[in-house]
């Protein structure tokens, strides 16, 4: 009896608990409206569509846990996408060159993370303003790389992400691996210090933690997730577009908040953010299958998001 109570108490305390409940209820609503939701093919398509936001939101979550915010992930997605679509050789595919482009894009992602980390951690620019400014630099470079939408990635790049084992496609498995990687990072000092720095930077500093370096690391790790998200996105669009990433900046923050990440930092879990991203995406499904008139869809979506965030905030105040 007592064990059950402590088990319940620790479940309630787990930061992933509420996002999971929220997602579960949205999935049930979706399932009622769309009975074939769990057919393997439909499940795979959904995961594939949601995957870019899931990964970007997980990256955003890591940055938010460190006490910051990154408004530039949107155009960062654009830039990575343009690099991939512009420099890969499709006809005929050149495997060596294309792999180098993949590495170049990863380097670009990490460089953007480091640049933001320097701006915020070392130069003490508030992240809200600093990353807002840097986002235009990323957009500018993306436009230089690809002035008009176009370019391409090889077909096997797409088929790789779509390949599947039963209902689990490669992208689903890579999301799982990426999130497990975060649990490993948390077992290292970097992981714990990211939480400490986000919770109270002054106190973390007093404990001898290199808060500047930790802030930089949080951005760099976060941007690896942003890179993975862009790969998943590009596999679907198969082209480059400098405006493609735009919605990801605010969507990833909303997903993280729905997923239990606290705006001030120090609390939450990227897994929650991933669940939040699925919730945010499933809302679109629900609106579509509920047959809501097109002109009403954006409004209804807004209301549902407010309810979701409201529930999260209310729950936090009550149980935490």
């Amino acid at each position: 009896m007592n064990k059950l109570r402590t088990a319940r108490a620790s479940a309630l305390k787990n930061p992933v608990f509420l996002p999971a409940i929220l997602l579960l209820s949205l999935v049930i609503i979706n399932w009622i409206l769309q009975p074939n939701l769990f057919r393997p093919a439909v499940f795979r398509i959904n995961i594939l569509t949601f995957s870019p936001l899931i990964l970007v939101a997980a990256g955003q979550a890591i940055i938010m846990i460190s006490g910051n915010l990154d408004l530039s992930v949107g155009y960062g997605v654009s830039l990575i996408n343009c690099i991939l679509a512009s420099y890969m050789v499709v006809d005929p595919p050149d495997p060596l060159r294309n792999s180098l482009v993949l590495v170049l894009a990863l380097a670009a992602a990490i460089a953007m993370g480091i640049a933001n980390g320097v701006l915020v951690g070392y130069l003490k620019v508030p992240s809200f303003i600093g990353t807002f400014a840097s986002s235009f630099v990323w957009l500018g470079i993306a436009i230089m790389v690809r002035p008009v939408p176009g370019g391409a990635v090889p077909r096997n790049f797409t088929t790789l992400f779509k390949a599947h084992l039963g209902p689990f496609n490669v992208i689903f498995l890579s999301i799982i691996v990426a999130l497990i990687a975060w649990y490993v990072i948390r077992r290292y000092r970097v992981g714990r210090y990211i939480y400490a720095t986000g919770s109270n930077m002054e106190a973390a500093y007093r404990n001898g933690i290199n808060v500047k370096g930790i802030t930089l690391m949080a951005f760099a790790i976060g941007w690896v997730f942003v890179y993975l998200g862009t790969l998943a996105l590009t596999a679907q669009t198969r082209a480059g577009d400098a405006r493609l990433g735009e919605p990801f900046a605010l969507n990833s923050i909303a997903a993280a908040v729905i997923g239990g990440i606290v705006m001030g930092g120090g609390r939450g879990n990227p897994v929650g953010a991933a669940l939040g991203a699925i919730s945010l995406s499933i809302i679109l499904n629900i609106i579509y299958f509920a047959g809501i008139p097109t002109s009403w869809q954006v409004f209804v979506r807004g209301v549902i998001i407010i309810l979701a965030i409201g529930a999260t905030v209310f729950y936090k105040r009550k149980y935490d």
Partner: protein
Amino acid sequence: MSDYIIEARNIRKLFGGVVALNGAEFLCPGGKIVGLLGENGSGKTTLSNIIMGNYPATDGELLFKGQKVRFSSPKEAENAGIAMVHQNFSLVPDLTVWENLLLGNEPRGSLGMLDNKQIRVLARQYLDRLCPWLDMNREIRKLLASEQQLVEISKALTRNPEFLILDEPTAALEREEVEILFKLMKDLKKQGISVVFISHRMHEVEEICDYVVVLRNGKTAGTVDLTDPDNVDYDEIVRLITGQRAVEAHKRLATDRELGDVILQAESIGDGENIKDVSFQIRKGEIVGLAGLQGQGQEELMLTLAGYNYIRQGRLNIFEKELRLKHPKNAIAAGMPLVPGNRQTQGLFMGLSVMHNTTFPKNLTKGQPWILPQKKQAAIASKLARDLTLKTDSLSNPVTALSGGNAQKVVVAKWLPIDPKVLLLSDPAKGIDVQSKADLYKLVGEIAMKGTSIFLYASDMNELLHICDRILIMYEGRIVDEVINSEQLDEEILMSKCMQHEGISQEYKATAEHGEQA
């Protein structure tokens, strides 16, 4: 070879143009407990921070174990064997107790990962010396201030220091916890570890320290030996702290006030949680104190009376009419404002001017014009400043520019323009120096003389004995006793009343432990 573990000589420190230290000397032999005394702003914390390497001294030299040192970060000082417990905590609120204890010094296991198993074992060991009942899986933000303080001290011990600075460790602690801490300090002393004890509570300093170093205006004013308790001139210490000014901190205030009719009457009120069945009466012009062990519901009672928490049972009457409280504004409208303990976070708008702060409560009252009458308010504010003898060159200066003692006066006095009937004070003198404390209570006494009733909770029982007419004793959310203040009453008698009966502290601890598990 030097006999001293720490020698700080002729330390000077400037912050911009402000002189924080000027000729501070501090010598500490090994294995001694040294009191560091001085008013707020006399440089105690600055000196500690310089020893700790938080910032460099402008001038002067520092020797550790006879070697000249200059630490450029707290980490370096820690590695050398110096640890400090700060007044502002260095705990990370969102991490658990055990994660905090070894934060920044975690042992690592395979593949360079954190060795959480060993961290937990070590954390438990260190916690057991001070607070064995504490559940170390709780997050810091969910602990009481006193529990955080004990964790903070435990954390300093994990650094295995040879020299330990405790900056006002007892301000957040109650008597029984102070005793555990003192026992620990004596153990450390036996091991040859030197401890610097910073406190405003004179009786604690007298009890534990071997000798005291007194700072005044950034300069070492003198050193007094306490090893032979019969030969200590305590007035000398007070004189060193305050300079030439006479201090009446230990004397009781005159109580020749005329008490009027009952103003405030509580009839078995409760908040459904921390307060149960509380009844009391307060007369016009009366100063009533609230005493008790830590966490018996004193603060909650104050918050409930001030409208922060709901009254769920019973009835509260003011002037024989029922007072229904849904919001602090109801209590303020009824003339019963709360003066909170923490002026920085609760009592003042630190960035706003003295004038804004003093006129704010008046603006809250009904019948004020929509456009605020600047001139009239300036007049109110400057009259108040004159009455209080506030030391500031302009009322448009932010309150941050005031000294601690002056700022504390503003916290209390800002309510005077609304003509309060009952003033609730929740530990108003926490962490302020002897002189400011005396000034503060002098002001409170004057307010009572004018017919305002005072309901005062103070964690330091001497403050209650100093000023109150009557003291209510709270235990487990109930008022269990009441004593009339007189010359015969002292801290010891009051303490034993608070403990209720022999062996209560064991029972108290047992219930605390039980509470953890539930």
